[in-house]
């Protein structure tokens, strides 16, 4: 029975741990990813997401635990494991001395792919990445979003079934992010397993079927975005701003409204199933915030609840 289960998982991690000296970057984490799923690691910078990705990618050795990619241990079968993957690293590492299209071809050669395959494939991927007009340009003339799309195109040159994306849209403007999300969504629809790290909750909500919330190398919670919100937060959130001086003092007078109260330096959050009703209660106590906002709970609230900190510092 366990055998038939593990065979359906493209990635299985058990008690995965990575130490740098005394520091545990990844601390005893376990997870499984079935084929075709879009799986996310959500957490702040330094949570151990990239280290986990590098171990999955077969380029970093674990301290302990076990890891299996397509049934193979990346430490024993590095080239085989890496041949299955497409990798989009956190920092672009395109060869800026080569032209856009040549970056794809050169990368495909690392997989021993023949030029008869690579030339049409490179054109197809440039089309997919909306970079066809840039095929002959130098890489350094591309914008940040274009470089990112080229890196994604490069990662697809070997038609991988698993794509590792480490902070795919960090540093991009909103429009470039939406174009990228659209491309990633298409890949997901075509059956590619996506493993992505992010510290953007909207990205996690858009792209992930399931995710783990990680902090300080540990998994804090696991589930689909809606499941996590249901389990760890209320339906709605009332955000009140009383001015930076008063937020904490007013918090005491708000006790009893909603299910839970979260005073932050810049605002007070009231977790409740009915935000409007809570706002009426606030007013009935004679308190008048400068601004008030009722919204749905998000993964940001889940993270705040689990760790006591916000995602983006």
């Amino acid at each position, binding site marked *: 029975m366990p055998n038939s289960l593990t065979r359906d998982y493209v990635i299985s991690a058990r008690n995965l741990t990575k130490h740098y000296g005394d520091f545990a970057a990844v601390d005893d984490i376990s997870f499984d990813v079935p084929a075709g799923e879009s799986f996310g690691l959500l957490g702040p910078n330094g949570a151990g997401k990239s280290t986990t990705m590098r171990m999955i*990618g077969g*380029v*970093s*050795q674990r301290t302990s635990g076990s890891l299996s990619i*397509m049934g193979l241990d990346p430490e024993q*079968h*590095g*080239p*085989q494991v*890496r*041949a*299955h*993957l497409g*990798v989009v*690293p956190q*920092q672009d*590492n*395109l*060869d*800026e*001395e*080569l032209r856009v299209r*040549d970056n794809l071809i*050169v*990368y495909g*050669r*690392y*997989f*021993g*792919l023949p030029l008869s*395959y690579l030339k*049409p*494939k490179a*054109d*197809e991927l440039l*089309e997919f990445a909306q970079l066809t007009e840039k095929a002959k340009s130098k890489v350094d003339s591309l914008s940040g979003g274009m470089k990112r799309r080229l890196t994604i195109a*490069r990662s697809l*040159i*070997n*038609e*991988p079934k698993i794509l590792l994306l480490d902070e795919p849209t960090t540093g991009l403007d909103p429009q470039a992010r939406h174009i990228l999300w659209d491309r990633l969504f298409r890949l997901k629809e075509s059956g590619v397993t996506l493993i992505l790290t992010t510290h953007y909750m909207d990205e996690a909500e858009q792209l992930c079927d399931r995710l783990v919330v990680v902090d300080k190398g540990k998994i804090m919670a696991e589930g689909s975005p809606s499941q996590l919100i249901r389990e760890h937060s209320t339906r709605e959130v009332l955000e009140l701003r009383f001015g930076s001086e008063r937020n904490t003092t007013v918090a005491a007078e708000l006790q009893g409204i909603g299910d839970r109260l979260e005073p932050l330096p810049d605002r007070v959050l009231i977790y409740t199933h009915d935000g409007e009703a809570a706002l009426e209660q606030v007013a009935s106590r004679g308190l008048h915030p400068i601004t008030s906002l009722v919204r749905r709970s998000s993964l940001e609230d889940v993270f705040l609840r689990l760790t006591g900190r916000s995602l983006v510092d």
Partner: protein
Amino acid sequence: MTNPPSAPSGVGAESAPPDATTTTAPPALRAHSPQVSADRAQRFGSWYYAEHALRVMNGYRWTLIAYSVGNPVMYLFAMGVGLATLVDQNSADAFGGVSYLAFIAPALLAAATIMTAATEFTYPVMDGFKWRRVYYGPHASPLAVHQIVNGYIIAITLRLVLMSAIYFGIVAAFGASPSPWGWAAVPVAVLCGLSFGLPLMAYSASVEEDKGQFALVMRFLVTPMFLFSGTFFPLTTLPIFLQWIGWISPLWHGTQLGRMLTYGYPVPAWLAVIHVVYLVALAILGWRLARRTYERRLGK
């Protein structure tokens, strides 16, 4: 339907399919299996990386060719023709009965490979690890770290071969290589470049931050070596307390071998063997160290 009046089969039929195949997912365009990728990478990975490095070099091939031709012509004219007329007039026998041009030509050839190695194994290495991080791309592919090292060495070796061959051709055209064995100075010069370049590659891979170390290497390693390795005058004319610079310098060992080959400079067989062994040993040591440093740094 009415548009194509002629060309019923031949031309039209042949030019149409490419458009059709690019729009609908072509069944022919399939990558081979990951297992095949892994097998090929394990067998030919070093060559794949060399191919990458050569494609980059191809981007500035005209600069490379102009340098490979211009550099020897410039040096041989200045030193071997200009300076030589003075030297040859004043000390006809000082250089073992050959012209000053013949004396310095093999030294300049060996020095040229060292200069090139000194640039190719410093800044580009730093670029790979730190600036543009180009090593991290192939590192995530089926290639192994040692194949990245080997591939780069293969590419630079090819560059050194091309450059030395051009250099030697020009030396020969100046009539400065009377011996029929002169061509063998080319592989010797390449070996000389690698014996200096590969230990330097290992060092460069260990540099975490550029604080001008490579400029220091050029100023305090390459330049003194160029000047004090019996390049422009026999090493024995230096006071004995400076001659050690020549003995440890790969340039001196390479130069002596080159002189033996281009104009029959008398070198006892045992010493010739020492020259070769010293150069090979330095190259192998540097290569092993570079592999280890790369593996440690990329696998962090």
